């Protein structure tokens, strides 16, 4: 299947490059760790307010870490005109999008999985029983951010004001992801029944679907024109 072959090659290339250079993963990890540490020390005195703040703190750390990583997603393709090669290749441009999205998602999930134990430690969380639900929310929200981020990274990578344009486009449109992620995380951490926060999880799922399908379709035009 040539379509899935393209996705496989893009993911292989992106992960292998990242494993060798560790450029993105190390900056993401230390940024997120700093955010967690700062919040941990800022709010450690007031134990009562912590449970209310934690969902927001988690998504400030994860969300902004994602933005840093996603902004660099297409940067490697501009070196040595690699993007030009992908444009000229007789392949589905949508498959390139799905490959880049999968690579970004994997990278973000690895960072989040490393950071979860640190959050448990610094915020004194008792979440082992809630981990599957928390990982599901994390996966859906990270997929939404990655889907949007991959699209805007491709759109802005060849613009002069890339650093300004990327967050300007991404942040307003990712508001539904942040709201859904914070509300779902609060539901999970507070031990509520799934039916209480189900609509937020559904919002994340629908957002992921709409953005991924739209971006897949639009990507053909972005790379070809």
């Amino acid at each position: 299947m040539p379509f899935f072959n393209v996705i496989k090659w893009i993911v292989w290339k992106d992960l292998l490059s990242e494993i060798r250079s560790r450029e993105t993963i190390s900056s993401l990890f230390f940024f997120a760790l700093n955010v967690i540490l700062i919040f941990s020390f800022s709010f450690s005195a007031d134990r009562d307010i912590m449970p209310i703040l934690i969902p927001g703190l988690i998504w400030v750390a994860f969300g902004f870490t994602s933005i840093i990583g996603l902004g660099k997603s297409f940067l490697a393709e501009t070196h040595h005109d690699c993007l030009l090669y992908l444009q000229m290749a007789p392949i589905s441009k949508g498959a390139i999008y799905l490959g880049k999205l999968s690579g970004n998602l994997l990278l973000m999930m690895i960072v989040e999985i490393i950071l979860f134990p640190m959050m448990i430690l610094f915020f004194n969380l008792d979440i082992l029983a809630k981990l599957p639900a928390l990982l599901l929310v994390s996966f859906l929200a990270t997929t939404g951010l990655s889907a949007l981020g991959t699209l805007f990274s491709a759109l802005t990578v060849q613009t002069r004001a890339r650093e300004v344009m990327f967050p300007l486009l991404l942040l307003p449109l990712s508001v539904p992801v942040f709201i859904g992620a914070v509300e779902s995380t609060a539901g999970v951490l507070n031990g509520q029944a799934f039916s209480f926060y189900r609509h937020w999880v559904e919002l994340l799922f629908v957002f992921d679907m709409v953005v991924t399908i739209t971006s897949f379709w639009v990507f053909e035009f972005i790379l070809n024109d």
Partner: protein
Amino acid sequence: MVSLLSENVSHAYGFFHALKGVSLEINPGDCFALFGPNGAGKTTLMKIFATLLSPTQGQLSILGKDAVRDRDTVRASIFFVGHGSFLYDDLTAIENIEFAIGIRGRLPPLNEIKTVLDRVGIGAYASQKTRTLSAGMQKRLSLAKTILAQPELILFDEPYTALDENGVEMMHQVIRDFLARGAAVILSSHDRAKTAQIANRAGLLHHKTLKEIPLTDLQNALF
């Protein structure tokens, strides 16, 4: 079948006309050298031939297919070697080839890749990251990718940049092999002497239009 047929192809960037009415027919076995002063529109024309830009006027067909309507089909048969090396710094020479050719749907066996790398003179560097290779070696690696892609129309934009004398001779031998098996080659270059050794036809892009010139006049052509 004609390898490339350009009929009155023009291109404009907004109100600026980069090319006007370029007509050209390239047949299998042709090696066409494209010359012109800076800003004449060589890169624009090469990008149109590589299907990266669409003509704003005129018709372009490659191997009998419309280059705009059947773009993806056409792209499977052409290969563009441009200013950039299209290489990923953190992948090795072999991995770069595997990615570049694999993504096009044909993964050559490892021994075939190594044979081609030996042929272009960088077999000893096959497992090195490409960031450690010199510009000349990267050019040779691009040539190895071109050989393995087995295209029917090859577009070279400034192919001699960074190549030493051996590299130029090796590139000419590779081009001769392409031509012998019926592929067509278009070379865009400023180096008349080197290009004259390999090309069998030449054209001068001047004042945004293309004029075919005899190879014997190449050294005297003013541009």
